[in-house]
C-alpha cells in the first residue's frame, strides 16, 4: 500500500518536472520575445523625450494625457472604420468561397486551399508593392478595363481610400477564409438534410442552420482580420499615399520621424489595450473554447 502511494507520488513529481521541461521553450520565447519587449514599451511610455532622440528618465503620465488631444481622434476613428470595412468585405467575399470549397470543390479543395495560402509566404511589403503597379493609372487593372471597353479614361485607384481597402482585404483574406472553411467543413450535413426534409428552402436553411452553426468560424475570422488590420501601416502608406494616417502610421511617425519613443510607446500600448478589450468581448460572445478555435 505504502509502496503504491510512493510510486504514485513519484510519478506525479516526475510528470511535473517533465511538464516544466516541455513547456520551458514556449515560456522562454514568450518571456524574451513578448513579455520583455512589452515591459520595455510599458516603461518607455512613462518617460520623456530628450534632444536628438535621447530618452529622459522623468516619469510622468503626460504621454497618455497627450493622446487625449482631439487631433488624434480622426486617426483612431479612421483606423477602426477601415478595420470594420476590411473585415466586412473579407467576410462577404470569403463566406461563399469557403462554402463552395467545403461543399462542392471535391478532390480539388486541397490544391485550391494551397493556392490561396501560397501568396502569404511572400513578404507583405513585396505584395503591396505589386499592387502599386496593378492599381496605377497605366496599370494592369486600368488597361484591362479599357481593353474591354468598360471605361474610356483611367480610373484613379492608387492613393485613394479604396486602394487601402483593396490592399487590406487582399492581405488578410486567408485569415478570414481558413476559419470559415474549417467550420463549414465540420458542419454536419445531416442537419441540412433534416432542414430540407422539414420543408426549409435554401435561403431559410442558410439563415436558420448554416450561419448559426458556423458562428464560431465567422467570429474567429473576424478577430484574425480585425486585429492586424487596425494596426496596419504598410498598406495606408504605400497604397493610400500617406495622405492620412492610421494608428500604425502615427506610431511609425513618432518612432522614426520624430524619435519620440516614449509617446510612440504610449500609443502602441493604448492600441494593444483596445485590441485586447475587443478580443475579450469576442470571448464573451463566442463562449468557451473560443481561444482554441482562433488557433
Amino acid at each position, binding site marked *: 500500500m505504502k509502496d503504491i502511494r510512493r510510486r504514485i507520488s513519484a510519478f506525479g513529481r516526475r510528470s511535473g518536472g517533465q511538464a516544466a521541461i516541455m513547456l520551458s521553450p514556449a515560456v522562454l520565447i514568450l518571456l524574451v520575445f513578448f513579455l520583455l519587449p512589452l515591459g520595455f514599451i510599458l516603461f518607455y511610455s512613462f518617460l520623456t523625450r530628450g*534632444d*536628438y*532622440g535621447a530618452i529622459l528618465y522623468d516619469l510622468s503620465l503626460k504621454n497618455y494625457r497627450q493622446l487625449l488631444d482631439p*487631433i*488624434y481622434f*480622426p*486617426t483612431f476613428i479612421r483606423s477602426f472604420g477601415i478595420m470594420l470595412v476590411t473585415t466586412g468585405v473579407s467576410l462577404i467575399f470569403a463566406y461563399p468561397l469557403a462554402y463552395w470549397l467545403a461543399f462542392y470543390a471535391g478532390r480539388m479543395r486541397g490544391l485550391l486551399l494551397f493556392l490561396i495560402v501560397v501568396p502569404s509566404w511572400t513578404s507583405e511589403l513585396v505584395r503591396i*508593392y505589386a499592387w*502599386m*503597379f496593378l492599381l*496605377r*493609372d*497605366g496599370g494592369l487593372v486600368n488597361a484591362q478595363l479599357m481593353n474591354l471597353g468598360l471605361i474610356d479614361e483611367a480610373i*484613379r485607384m492608387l*492613393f485613394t481610400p479604396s486602394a487601402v481597402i483593396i490592399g487590406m482585404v487582399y492581405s488578410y483574406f486567408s485569415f478570414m477564409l481558413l476559419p470559415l472553411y474549417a467550420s463549414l467543413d465540420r458542419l454536419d450535413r445531416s442537419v441540412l438534410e433534416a432542414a430540407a426534409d422539414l420543408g426549409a428552402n435554401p435561403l431559410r436553411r442558410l439563415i436558420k442552420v448554416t450561419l448559426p452553426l458556423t458562428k464560431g468560424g465567422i467570429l474567429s475570422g473576424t478577430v484574425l482580420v480585425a486585429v492586424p488590420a487596425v494596426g496596419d501601416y504598410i498598406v495606408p*502608406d*504605400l497604397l*493610400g*499615399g*500617406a*495622405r*492620412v*494616417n492610421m494608428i500604425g*502610421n502615427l506610431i511609425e*511617425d513618432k518612432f522614426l*520621424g*520624430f524619435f*519620440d519613443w516614449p509617446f510612440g510607446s504610449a500609443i502602441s500600448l493604448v492600441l494593444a489595450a483596445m485590441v485586447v478589450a475587443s478580443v475579450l468581448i469576442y470571448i464573451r460572445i463566442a463562449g468557451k473554447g473560443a481561444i482554441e478555435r482562433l488557433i
Partner: protein
Amino acid sequence: MNGRRPKLIICVTLLLTVLVMVASCAPAEEATPEEVLGDEEAIRALPAGLIEKVREEGSKLNVYNWSFYIDEGRVEKFEELYGIDVTYDLYESNEEMKAKIQAGGSGYDLVYPTQSTLYEMIQLDLLQPLNHDWIPNMQYLLPTFVDPSYDPGNEYSVAYMWGTTGYAYNTVRTEGDPRVGSWALMFEGEEYSGYMTMLDDYAAAINAALKYLGYSWNSADPDELAEARDVLLRQKPWIRAYISGPVREQMIAGEVWIGNLWSGDSIYVSDENPDYSYCLPIEGGEVWVDSMAITKEAPHPATAHLWINYMQEPEVQAAIVEYVYYASPNKAAQEFIPAEILENPAIYPSEEAIANSEFTLPYTGEALEIRERIWEELKQ
C-alpha cells in the same frame, strides 16, 4: 558508450567555436612586408611626421562607408600608394552606423555621416577633432563646406559628397510655365492638382514651404511656421500622395508630373524617362552633405587623416563623382569632371540656388514641436 556521445558533441562544438573565433581574428594579422612599402614619391609628399605615425599604427585602416559610395579602385590605389591594409565595410543608413559607433568596440576609424547625424555624433562625443595640418587638401573645399553650421571650423569633419532636395518635374507637362525653377510651381500650381507629390518627410515638406515664403529652411519662428502650415494645408488637396522613394516609378510612368524629391532619385527618373528634369528652386532648398569623420575610439587616427587627405585629391574626387553621380565639395576637382555632369542640374544646381540653400540640422525644442504639430495637422 551512451555517455560518451554527448561529450564528443560538446568537444566538437567547442573546437568549432574556437576555430571560428580564431578565424575571425586572423585577417588582421596578415599584410606582407612588401605591401607596407608603398610608393616612395607619394610618401615623400606627405606632411612631416605623418607617415611615421601611420607605420606606428601598423599601416592598417578600418573604413565604414555607405554602400555604392566609392569607386572601389580608389581603395586599392590608396593601399598601393601608401602601403596600407584597408578593411572596407558598408552600411545602409545613418541610424545603423550611429548605433554601431555608439555601442562601442566597433574598431572603425572612419565614418561618413550626413550632416544632421554628424551634428548629433559631435554632441554625443563620438568623434575626435581633426589635425588640419595633416589634411592639406582641405584647401580645395568649396566655401559652402568651409566652417559649416553643422561643424563650426570643420573641427570634426571634411565634406565628401553632397546633393540637394528640390523637385523633379515633367518638362512637357509644365512647358512654358514661368514658375518652373521656383517653389511656386508646387505651392501655387493648382492646375497640376492630382499630379503632384510631396516627400513623406516632415522636415523636407515643411521646410520647402518655408523657403517658398522666403524664410530660413531651419526657421524656428512660430509665425513663419504658421504661414508654412497654411501653405501646406492649401496645397494638400492638390497632392496625390506624400511619398518618398517609390514615387520614381510613378514618374517614369508619367503619372506624377511634379514631385518634391532628392537629387539622386531624380537622376534615376531622368535616365528612365528623359521628359523629367530636376530643379533646386531659386529660393533655395536643402543641401545635404556626407562627410568623413574620425571616431573617438579610432585605433588608427593618423592613417585615417591620410585617407581623408587622399580622398580630397582633386583627381580622386573627380573619379568618384563620375562613379557615384553626386557632387563633389572639392573646387579643384571640377576641371577633371566631364561637362555633362557639371551641367546636370540634378548634380550641380545653379550657384544662386545653392547660395540660398541650407543644411538641415536636427531640430529641438520649439522648432521640433511646431513642426511635429504641423505634420500631425496635415495628416490627421
